[in-house]
């Protein structure tokens, strides 16, 4: 059960969800080059509600760059990305309530504890998910680490926290860059269960990973770079 700190923010989030229900993420003719070197050219694909796309390609083919473009972290590119019929460049900060990017290296505050990180990230966007957070902590077997600082955790546990925070934020589109790296078999299974359950709720995923974890995912399509 979601509880929001602030009524205005709750209304804003609810409205944005209603408006975006059923929206697709459309990538149209995206090209990117660094120092006159073309990384990829005229990439186009769609991610519909409830779909899981596998983004594959050799090392250096630009998978991470493309994911950062789709999640609006890289803004200099040619082509367009649309959410529904709106260009994401015109959506502003609202876009980040709908799309989240999970980087390969966890992006957390190393000197805060696991629970403090969760509390900070959820509080800052105005949501409170005590029950869901507790459940996810149990699912990922992090219960004994809650008061430990992130810097004291293993790479695998850091990755779990990063994934956990991402699911608490509950966006419509998840852009996952090597989500299985560092994860053990149990965590890998938990993540796949979460992904499959989320697609039933209409959430969409763009995943790139070379891990064995991908074998349990029913992909809706493949994008090759």
């Amino acid at each position: 059960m979601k509880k929001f700190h602030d009524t205005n923010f709750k209304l804003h989030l609810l409205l944005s969800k209603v408006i975006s229900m059923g929206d697709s993420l459309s990538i149209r003719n995206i090209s990117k080059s660094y120092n006159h070197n073309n990384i990829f050219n005229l990439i186009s694909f769609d991610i519909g509600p409830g779909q899981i796309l596998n983004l594959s390609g050799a090392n250096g083919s630009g998978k991470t760059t493309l994911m950062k473009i789709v999640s609006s972290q890289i803004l200099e590119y040619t082509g367009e990305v649309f959410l529904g019929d709106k260009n994401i460049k015109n959506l502003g900060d609202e876009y980040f309530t709908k799309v989240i990017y999970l980087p390969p290296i966890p992006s957390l505050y190393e000197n805060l504890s696991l629970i403090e990180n969760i509390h900070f990230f959820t509080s800052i966007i105005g949501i409170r998910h005590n029950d869901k957070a507790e459940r996810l902590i149990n699912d990922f077997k992090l219960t004994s680490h809650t008061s430990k600082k992130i810097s004291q955790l293993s790479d695998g546990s850091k990755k779990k926290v990063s994934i956990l925070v991402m699911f608490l934020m509950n966006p419509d589109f998840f852009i996952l860059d090597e989500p299985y790296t560092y994860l053990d078999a149990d965590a890998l299974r938990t993540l796949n269960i979460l992904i499959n359950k989320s697609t039933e709720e209409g959430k969409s995923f763009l995943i790139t990973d070379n891990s064995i974890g991908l074998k349990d995912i029913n992909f809706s399509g493949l994008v090759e770079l």
Partner: protein
Amino acid sequence: MRNFAKIIILILEKDLKIELREKLNLTYVFILSITLSLIGYTFIGPNKLIELFFFISLIASLVANQRISRQEISLGGELILISVPFDLSIICFAKILFFIIISLLINFTVFITLSLVSNVSIFDYGVNFLTLCILFIVGVSSILSTFSLMLERIKGEGQFMFILIYPLILPFLILAYNSIILVHISDSAVFFQSFSLQALVAFDILLLTVCPILFSYSIRR
């Protein structure tokens, strides 16, 4: 507005928690301020104590800010809060406020050290001195916090965006220097009516407004 204040408080709380728990940066700032004060006093002596005070504070702030701003950068080299669904200027503003607190600590340390080694009170014109200290801290914190956050985050041409606020930085520094000379005026009313101090207030307000907007624009333009 309520959300804006709440986010700022959350970031300030987080920063204070990290710094007070780690103490590494605070210890570093403390040692750096004392060391620079001693070096500065050895080279320049007691004749230009107030100028020395502000110069050391500026250098210590510059180094400390670079170090403290790194807390906002992940191991992957990205700004941790890059994907938050609100304007990034709020984050920059919160970092400026936090650095004002750190600058107060730097100024206090430098003041105590210089007072002890020189045996000369630089507090004879207390109100003037305190006012200038606060105005100086606000301006310097705005510039340095934005500068270090942008340097950490933006590679390539983005760094040159900072040149955009050079027309604000240079007059700020010149006005601060002119005000330092005026601190010795015993009549506070004259000091407060001086053009350089009043213009310094205006530049503080401008920097506090422009720096966060520039930071947000440079990342999500």
